[in-house]
């Protein structure tokens, strides 16, 4: 009751621009990973291969991390989706390994040894695509050389020098250990999150600097802050964000390298499911598995591994978080969204209150978010053990297992 009152007061006090998001309307539509399987590349909605994570550049290209696909003829690819909607392999030989050079011969171990197998991908405005290659303890860069050939090179990590806060060295001499999640700023500055520390590499790629351990508020009392990061992204202002499951928090890293705990209470068992949406640092996220930044920096979108939902977390840190419900609108859930889970059905015609308030609405089922594009549209899928894909009222199941959660233009 008290939390609901706080959330309402916070909403009433919110400035005008923060109210805009409550008028947003989102919809879901097919993207890729065709139902029934399909070719490994071609028209994006007809491609059968799924994806782990994706990012976008400002030219309208999308870049996809492809892990293992049982129907495909290989694994460990970086794919590109052109503005014309054709999906191609961009890099990767189809086999696990470590090999730099021409993109078709390159080998990766993305997700290998990473916490829950997570691997993410980022693009800057200069034509670089970066991927966290956890199995090779490094960050790889995919780029087009002066001759117009796509190549893969190791950008950071793979070395033996272990750095402490403030220390720096050439990026390829540094030892980067633990799960590797990255965020690339438009200018090419790369922020690298690992289990214990955070690093930055400037756009020229000449040095890697250790920013230090994670903020103490991300740890339980008397514990060293240990973040099992699963997702990361960067807004157009260059602010990097990372989300971790255990502890269930989001952190922000500014272009100047200042780290801060921006959302999520650090909780232990039993999980505080009585806590719903509210001010970001008072909200509880249940094992968040992915997060992406709104390009304008106004918020981040956190997807919960055990919530199956998308939460909107404002970066102003004062207004409330909100949950995308199954009519494509944001609602403030008074109790944890996990208690509001309904069928994986998107129904834009629904009205009413959240299920927790005895109404018909429940959260839109998504787990995990896999990426966003330059316009801020989100892309999600549903774990195969939860359901198959999104069911749209009146239209039936989407024809792809990965779908676009598109913000409808006003």
């Amino acid at each position, binding site marked *: 009751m008290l939390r609901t009152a706080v959330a309402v007061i916070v909403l009433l006090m919110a400035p005008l621009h923060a109210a805009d998001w409550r008028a947003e309307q989102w919809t879901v539509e097919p993207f890729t990973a065709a139902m029934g399987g399909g*070719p490994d590349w071609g028209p994006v909605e007809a491609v059968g291969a799924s994806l782990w994570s994706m990012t976008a550049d400002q030219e309208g290209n999308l870049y996809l991390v492809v892990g293992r696909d049982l129907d495909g003829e290989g694994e460990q690819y970086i794919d590109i989706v052109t503005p014309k909607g054709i999906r191609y392999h961009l890099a990767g*030989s189809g086999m696990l390994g470590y090999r730099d050079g021409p993109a078709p011969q390159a080998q990766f171990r993305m997700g290998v040894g990473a916490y829950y197998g997570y691997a993410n991908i980022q693009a800057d405005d200069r034509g670089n695509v970066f991927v966290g290659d956890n199995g090779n303890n490094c960050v790889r860069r995919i780029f087009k050389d002066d001759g117009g050939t796509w190549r893969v090179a190791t950008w950071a990590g793979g070395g033996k020098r272990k750095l402490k806060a403030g220390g720096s060295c050439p990026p390829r001499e540094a030892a980067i250990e633990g799960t590797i999640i990255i965020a690339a700023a438009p200018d090419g500055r790369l922020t690298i999150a690992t289990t214990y520390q955070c690093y930055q590499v400037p756009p020229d790629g000449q040095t890697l600097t250790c920013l230090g351990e994670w903020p103490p508020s991300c740890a339980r009392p008397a514990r060293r802050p240990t973040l099992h990061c699963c997702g990361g992204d960067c807004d157009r202002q260059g602010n990097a964000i990372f989300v971790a499951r255990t502890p269930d928090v989001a952190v922000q890293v500014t272009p100047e390298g200042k780290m801060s705990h921006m959302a999520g209470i650090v909780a232990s068992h039993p999980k505080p499911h009585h806590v719903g949406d509210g001010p970001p640092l008072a909200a509880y996220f249940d094992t968040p598995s992915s997060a992406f930044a709104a390009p304008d920096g106004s918020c981040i979108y956190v997807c919960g591994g055990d919530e199956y939902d998308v939460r909107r977390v404002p970066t102003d840190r004062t207004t409330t978080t909100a949950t995308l419900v199954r009519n494509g609108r944001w609602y403030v859930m008074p109790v944890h969204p996990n208690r509001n889970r309904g069928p994986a059905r998107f129904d834009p015609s629904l009205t009413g209150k959240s299920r927790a308030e005895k109404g018909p609405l429940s959260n839109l089922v998504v787990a995990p978010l896999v990426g966003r594009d330059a316009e801020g549209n989100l892309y999600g899928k549903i774990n*195969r053990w939860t*359901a198959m894909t999104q069911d749209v009222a009146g239209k039936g199941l989407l024809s792809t297992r990965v779908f676009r959660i598109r913000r409808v233009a006003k």
Partner: protein
Amino acid sequence: MLQSSVLTLGLLLSTSVAAAMDVGQAVVLWPGAPPQHQLLPACAFDGKGTFLVVWQQGRKYFEGEDARVLAARIAADGTVLDGEPLALCAAEGSQERPRVAFAAGVFLVVWQDFRNGEDWDVRAARVRPDGKVLDADGIEVATGPRSQAMPDVAGGPEAFLVAWQDRRSSDPYEVFAALVPPNDEPRPAGGAPLVHDGKHLTGGSVHVARARDLWFLAWKDDFAWSVGGGPTARITRLLARVSASGDRLQVMDVRRAPRGTYGLHPASLAASPTRAFFATGGSQRSVRCAMGAMYDAATGQPIRNPNTETRSNSAGWNTEHAIVLLEPLVPGVQPPMAVASDGEHFLVAIRQRAARRDPRQPLRLLRLDASGRRLDDVKALPVLDPGQRPCSHPALAAGQPGSFLVAYQSQDAGGCQRVVARVASVAQAR
């Protein structure tokens, strides 16, 4: 003394069993190949003495290389007959995922084709056993709007049946098929959606096999999943019988095929004159297994599993009908598998992780008799390739009775996938 006799008898028996599976040397189909991957082999036999192996040469990359379809003939003794592979198509764009069958004196090779730069089409070319390619650049099988892809082909007495997945008229893929006559002048086939009980068959990853006077068709349909989630959230695998009357195809029946948990693993299908054999993999609680089921061609009904299984309901399978092909192990089967029949035996090629921390993935073979009775011990299947170098994607074709050709990808020292082939003789079943 007694122990010694038992040991001697055991050795004799094991020698006998080993001799029953005679596997020839691996031959590289194109020793002078450029450093491009050779992928997704498929093979067929002409009924006399020649196998045709087809494969995808190269892989499409953005602003990079394209793929094309090549073929090579292999004699029944395993000798490669073509020093340079047969090029089936010189068109622009990529040609991928070839499949091949033989009927009425010619091989028919089908593939998915991206020459229009916008979507996939299905094309085909006939190849004579003497190596002559009859249809340069391929004839149109399905070139409708949007994508037609991932075709499979099986022979018949009067025509080949080509089946594929098609998005020309609906968002989910539908299963389409066409009859392609072997000897007529090439003409666009076009194809039609397969319909059962007034509904179009939806889904993809189609396989076809000829049995008796009809074809078996296997595919997967994600749309048969429950929308509610939970334990029913599984891909449905389906099996149908298709008959032809003139140019018209009729779906006689549709039934569910067995599948492992989630149904994610690819399936394989083969048929003898009286039986069809469906095989796939599955996993449950990190246990990967391979299982199959035998179907009667006359009735379409599954045949009771003639084997005694040590586990029941492994990975959700009903072992009353499902036959264990590889004892559930951790780690276990690595898809895809291949199956083929010479009329008397079914042969299964399975890739299996050697051990949890061992990167080798040997290819193994399993024989079954026509009733589905296993002829090899599922705990110790004969090894086709020990997997010292990564090998994968086996393809099988039955030759003369008791003889099979196995073609598969094997990584060379430079990291390139190469298609190699071996002849396996299974005539002396124990």
